[in-house]
């Protein structure tokens, strides 16, 4: 009797939960049913950053400082080192001309040493070539290349690609010996798209005539921002008369100024970042290419690219993780042809899993709830002999009855 009550209660809760989740789940199911591209359907799983400084030589100090500043920023906002590919000529810090050995600054106040501990340079010196750059993007490495030097992104990755150096009309110079053309970049991005290597890609370029580098891009999900239009130069911000070189470029300087105000929990949108560039400050016109990007910039927090999303996948037991995508897809197929009552738990789990809007905390709570509920159900399911169970139950009830009487007494 009591058990039945329990079951009834159980069912009521499940129904209530289902009613709550229903509309969302249904919406999701429709989305899944439509034959749209996978980028919309897969969820944002992780963040990667590829930071490239394409120049070398002492007088290009500022490009290395730019890259290292951005490296520091994305690390601060949560992208871990193993998801940052840093390509750097790396000939500044220990250059004989550097008055401050093993230190790199991006401001003449010298408050912040960018070359402190924990700078992991993945490609340094003469490894920064167009070939290596394209290999990183497209993932076509030789077998001997270690995992730390590969961009191991997936269908749900948001990638930030930052490049700085000397550029021109539709090209970017690599270390004074090679050049990357806009066609090469567009081709690499297209390959990445076809190989499901990203969900969204933000390309940020700080060079002269940066806008021209984006002219050939055509892959959906790509957002591009450049420091200058065609025919414009990108200028350095200021000269450090102590070190004797320009230490940072204007575009990067104001980008950093924007991010210095943020921490990883801030919700500043991409449009607020883009609006922070004033042509009078940059001495050039920042250029955005948004036509390949579906979402509204106002709704996209900058941390979608500059920060990091760490997906927590719940597994039933340790070391038995299923691939998340196959898991959810299998359930979607079943969720339509089964009755609500018959598969309520699974739908609950599914809806939970597919909820893009839910933040991490909520997901965690629901995960815990789900877990308890599941174990309870499992335990219930294991019991075969209902009668003995009832008797045992009554016997257990006896001390419970005694307790209140003793208390009231």
């Amino acid at each position: 009797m009591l058990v039945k009550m329990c079951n009834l209660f159980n069912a009521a809760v499940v129904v209530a939960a289902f009613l709550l989740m229903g509309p969302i789940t249904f919406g999701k199911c429709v989305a899944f049913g439509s034959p749209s591209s996978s980028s919309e359907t897969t969820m944002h799983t992780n963040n990667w950053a590829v930071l490239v400084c394409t120049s070398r030589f002492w007088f290009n100090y500022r490009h290395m400082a730019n890259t290292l500043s951005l490296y520091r920023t994305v690390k601060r906002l949560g992208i871990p080192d193993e998801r940052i590919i840093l390509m750097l000529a790396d000939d500044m810090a220990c250059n004989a001309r550097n008055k401050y050995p093993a230190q790199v600054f991006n401001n003449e106040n010298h408050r912040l040493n960018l070359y402190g501990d924990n700078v992991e340079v993945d490609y340094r010196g003469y490894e920064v070539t167009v070939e290596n750059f394209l290999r990183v993007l497209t993932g076509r490495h030789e077998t001997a290349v270690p995992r730390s030097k590969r961009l191991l992104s997936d269908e749900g990755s948001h990638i930030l690609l930052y490049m700085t150096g000397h550029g021109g009309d539709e090209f970017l110079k690599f270390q004074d010996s090679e050049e990357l053309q806009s066609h090469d970049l567009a081709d690499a991005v297209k390959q990445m798209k076809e190989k499901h290597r990203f969900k969204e890609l933000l390309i940020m370029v700080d060079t002269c005539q940066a806008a021209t580098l984006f002219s050939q891009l055509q892959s959906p999900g790509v957002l591009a921002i450049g420091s200058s239009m065609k025919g414009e130069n990108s200028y350095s911000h200021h000269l450090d008369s102590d070190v004797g070189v320009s230490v940072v470029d204007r575009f990067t300087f104001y980008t950093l100024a924007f991010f210095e105000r943020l921490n990883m929990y801030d919700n500043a949108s991409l449009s607020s970042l883009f609006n922070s560039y004033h042509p009078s400050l940059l001495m050039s016109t920042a250029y955005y290419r948004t036509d390949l990007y579906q979402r509204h910039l106002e709704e996209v927090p900058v941390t979608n690219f500059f920060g990091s999303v760490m997906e927590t996948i719940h597994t039933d037991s340790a070391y038995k993780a299923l691939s998340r995508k196959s898991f959810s897809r299998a359930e979607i197929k079943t969720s339509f042809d089964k009755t609500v009552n018959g598969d309520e738990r699974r739908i609950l789990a599914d809806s939970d899993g597919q909820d893009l809007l839910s933040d991490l905390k909520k997901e965690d709570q629901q995960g815990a709830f789900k877990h308890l509920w599941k174990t309870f159900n499992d335990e219930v399911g294991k019991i075969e002999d209902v009668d003995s169970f009832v008797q045992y139950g009554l016997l257990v009830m006896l001390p419970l009855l005694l307790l209140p009487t003793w208390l009231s007494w």
Partner: protein
Amino acid sequence: MAKTDRDTSKGKPRPIVRLGIFLISHSFFFSVVFSTAGVLALLLLPVLAKNTYISENSLMPGSVAPMLSDQEVAEGNRLIEDLNALKSKPLGSGIGSQRLVAQYMSNLGAEVSFHKFHRQPSQFHPLHFFSSPDSRRIEQNISCALHGVNTIGIIRAPRGDGKEAIVLVTPFNSVKVNKNEALSLGIAYSVFSLLTGVPWLAKDVIWLVADSQFGEYAAVAAWLRDYHTPVFSGVGTLDAEMCPEINNLRGMEENLFTERMTFDGFKRAGTMAAALVIKVGDRTQQYEDSLSIYAEASNGQMPNLDLINTVNYLAVHRQGLRVKVEKLWSLLNMRWLKTLGEMFELLGHYARNINPQLKFGIPAAEYIEGSATLASSLYYQALGIPTGPHGAFRDYQVDAITVEILPKVFTLGNKVRQNDFLLRSGRLIEGVVQSVNNLLEKFHQSFFLYLLTSPSKFVSVGVYMIAFALLVAPLPMVAASLYVNASNSDESMNSEKSSPSATAVDSASSPTTTDAAPLVTLSESTPLLTAADSGSLATVADSASLATAADSSRFATTADCITLSSWKWLYAAKKSFIVYLWGSVVSLLPYFICQIPSCTPTTSFIIWVLLSILGLVVMYGILASPFSDANDSKSQKEWAILKSVTLSAAFIGLCLMSIINFATAEIGGLLMVPMCLMAHPLKLDVKTRSLRTISRAVCNLVLGFIGFPPVTFIVLKGAFEGFSSINVGDFWSWVESLWAWNSATYLYIGVVHLPCWVLCIHILFHHC
């Protein structure tokens, strides 16, 4: 049938051929236009000068705040005082001052070494004219007593790779300590003491205190020679083996200090990125501290413009010094130059009225300044003698300049003024060292071939070459036209003699050429081919069903013509070859004249002239006389062929020289081109007796007089310096200085200019 064949094959010559024909057929008009345009373009150069800019990105001059402070200046002052104190001591100041400097250097922690060198007598070695300085090690007659000692201090870059070095040079006469030289040492020392402590050096810094008792250049050149020719035969150098007594001398004055000093071995750093010779000038300036830059090295070679730009930028924009380059002061007061400047200014004004975008024309005053500087730039490049010790570096492809810092008038006691002067000059040198230190490659970005019109304005090779090209362009044109005319007139003369029918055949067989005047026929076929062509014409006529009798007779007459017209040039060529041969003999004569002991310049010069004349007469008598009579009688136009050969030779000579030393070729062209173009036998001119011919004869005489190299020298010298102190011997001394410095200008005068002049004179007095 044959006619159509000919038409199709020769139907229409290519445009460039037609252009050539056109130019040659109107050679008189075009030669006047081109040579005027050449002179005009030269005068226009100051207007066309561009502002200099720093082309090499890595230099970044002035990006660092100077670190030189009063502390280093005080140290520099201490050295100056010690040096001046040493001057008052009469005994042993020679080696004393060097030891003092070495002591100061080693106190800073620099590596110090001495370099002993011997004076090399400047002598004309015809076989070693263009050879590298290394091979000039012919030291048979060095007097061991005469030696100088350079002091070298080297700072090793703390984190550099030691493969490159920057050189600072301060010439310093150890025998007679000069106040200005002491000041320059003070400047260099204060910079040196700063550089020992800085962490940013990527190149080693070498400070060479060059012992200038035998001349600044000799000391620097000797050090550079030893720097670049390492001796691997142990410790002792070649010098030490040759003069053992010097070593003893050195051993005698040993004390604690000299033992510590590293005498053995020649200290080296890496390849030199740039060198800076620092001097303090004698001429004090009225109003402000200023800076003179000397850049010309041997044979008009210049250091990279970026080096001058860097110094100029730092001096003007950082230290507020006034920068000057040499100019011909006498040009500043010339009336005609002033009117010309005003004219250009006016023209520029009009041009701007028409189109405001046109940036043509500069103020007249600026034009005069610019042309005075340009003229001096041209002159020093043309001379081919380095204007300072920096020239020695250029021989090793090291970019170097001399900066002469001219202080404002200050009394000796004015300590504050001197400190300020030291501080500013020191900071300038520090800035240049810092910029060069930033370099990653050799200087290569900016120009090597340029003329300066002011410290911040230059004319690049692409612009100034136009003037020269225009100037020499008439030479081949007139030569071709003269030759064509001469051989044509001969031919027509001959054919008139033979038979009128032959000419009729000629005109009938080639209708394409008849209507276009005889010039076209001539130019269509190259001069050498005229004879062959006429031969073929005959055969063509033969097949063209014309009277065979007339043909055969014509064939017979042309056979005679062939030998005459096609080989006529050979005789003229032989003549001019003899003259050119004589020219080279004349340029070798000074080597023997030098051997004559106790000769004043004037007597040497007279001996030279007499020997030259003798040589000419002898060579002409032996080589040229036998054929001259035979040919002269036959050809009325022999002088024209000779002139054409002269012009061609002059053209080739000038073009070759323009590759070796452009400025020499330009000045030589200005003198030679009018002389060669005008040359015309006086006899003919006088015979005609028209105003035109008489004036031509006068012009020819004047040009012929001026064209003689010694006269040219004296006239030019008189024009710029006044005729009061002119001596015939001056030319000898001038020429002596040219060969002492291995200047190619000497060869040019002897081998190109003088023979050309002789040929022109020969044409003038031709007996036709």
